[in-house]
């Protein structure tokens, strides 16, 4: 079922926050069109893995091959142009920009991104509030804006950090539907998510992280057999 080459291939990724060694050799592969979820307790290095792949953390060793290119060598603003988009955990909506300016902020890096019309059709709330300051939106709307603005850019891979955190169940469901729609468009997603019941609905595969390393991996079909051990491992 896989094409021969992974879209993203991470090998022996180490990363440091100042003197603090946060990642200890992360290995993972994502094939084109897959949605892959990183599971793990707080502080095991899930967010750090995304930030290190993106290049927001600069102190890194190992290799991150994306689309045949070693992105560890790129300047931070070149990584997006290689085709990787980032949706941060804190959403990163700008208060001094309107909703529409927030949406238009990330430069398009490739063709094949969603048009503004498509985005507004998918998120009528954003159209309605396009002239409001970005941070006047509700938490759920801000999350949708944070994802929508990356969809515009035409990136091949989206790094999505805890999109459901702190949101009401009905909004979580809405975001789930949205991620499924993205998957149908063939987008590749690396998702960090604490809520594996949510992730089970959209992910193809899972990686489990602990102490800055990938300790386990399994497919969504294997998930039911793992629930008990996962509950223990994640301390749910």
């Amino acid at each position: 079922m896989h094409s021969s080459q992974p879209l993203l291939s991470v090998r022996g990724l180490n990363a440091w926050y100042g003197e603090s060694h946060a990642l200890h050799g992360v290995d993972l592969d994502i094939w084109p069109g897959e949605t892959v979820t990183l599971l793990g307790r707080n502080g095991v290095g899930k967010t750090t893995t995304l930030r290190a792949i993106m290049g927001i953390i600069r102190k890194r060793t190992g290799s991150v091959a994306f689309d045949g290119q070693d992105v560890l060598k790129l300047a931070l603003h070149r990584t997006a142009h290689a085709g990787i988009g980032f949706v941060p955990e804190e959403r990163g909506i700008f208060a001094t920009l309107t909703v529409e300016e927030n949406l238009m902020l990330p430069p398009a890096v490739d063709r094949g991104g969603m048009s503004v019309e498509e985005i507004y059709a998918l998120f009528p709330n954003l159209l309605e509030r396009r002239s409001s300051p970005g941070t006047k939106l509700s938490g759920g709307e801000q999350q949708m804006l944070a994802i929508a603005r990356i969809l515009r850019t035409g990136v091949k891979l989206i790094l999505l950090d805890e999109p459901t955190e702190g949101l009401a169940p009905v909004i979580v469901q809405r975001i789930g539907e949205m991620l499924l729609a993205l998957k149908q468009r063939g987008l590749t997603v690396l998702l960090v998510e604490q809520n594996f019941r949510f992730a089970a609905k959209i992910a193809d595969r899972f990686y489990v992280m602990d102490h800055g390393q990938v300790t386990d991996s399994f497919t969504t079909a294997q998930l039911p057999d793992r629930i008990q051990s996962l509950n223990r491992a994640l301390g749910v």
Partner: protein
Amino acid sequence: MTMIFGIPVQALLGQLLVGLINGSFYAALSLGLAVIFGLLRIINFAHGALYMLGAFVGYLLLAFAGIGYWPALIVAPLIVGLFGAVLERTMLSRLYKLDHLYSLLFTFGLALFIEGTFRYFYGSSGQPYAVPPSLAGGTNLGFMFLPNYRAWVVVASFAVCIGTWFLIERTKLGSYLRAATENPTLVQAFGVNVPLLLTFTYAFGCALAGFTGILAAPIYQVSPVMGSNIIIIVFAVVVVGGMGSIFGAIATGYLLGLAEGLTKVIYPEASNIVVFVIMAVVLLVRPAGLFGKEA
């Protein structure tokens, strides 16, 4: 003679107009400081020296190349802006990772260096720079005689202020600037070349100072100390307005210019310190400045 509260109306209007002209310089200079501080978080102590540099570039263009006022009004800011770009690229950008105190010290040293260089060659006396012939003469407003050049200064400075406000608040480039002010790392992760944006912003702020300098050249004499004379007041303007607020910098510049003019009529002895008195009061009542966000 008509009087308001025992003050001749002619004198009042006359001084308010002088205040408006001074305010035009304060607004344009504090705007440049606010633009630079907003994105780079650097207090550009070299701003006064760059203002002086703009005036001197105009003077030198005329003296050595025969280039007159109107072309110089474009060329001088470009040269000062380019100078700023080189400074940022080669020196200032190396200081971003350190405490802000280092960049403050650097720009302070730079101001001394630029000023010292010009003082070495030109002494501290001023060089005259003639008003362009097309703006010579004046208009009788009834209550006072308004030199045309001073009217032009008010118009040109206001246009530049509005233009800058528009650039930052209403354009795509401005949205990059505003977003990078909030979270530069995320903006760069989106694929925007933030280091280049920083260079552009510093160069733009410097060009604003250079433009104000050439604008001032026919009014004040072109002298190496013209920058340090005005920059202290401009820093007070920035403090009163609130650091980093574009609109605040513009509005406060004009307000304090007018306040100064008004004081000259009411109580002339206080006109040199009124700006600093206002600054002290504002710091007591609203430490973030009139237009600044409360921390």
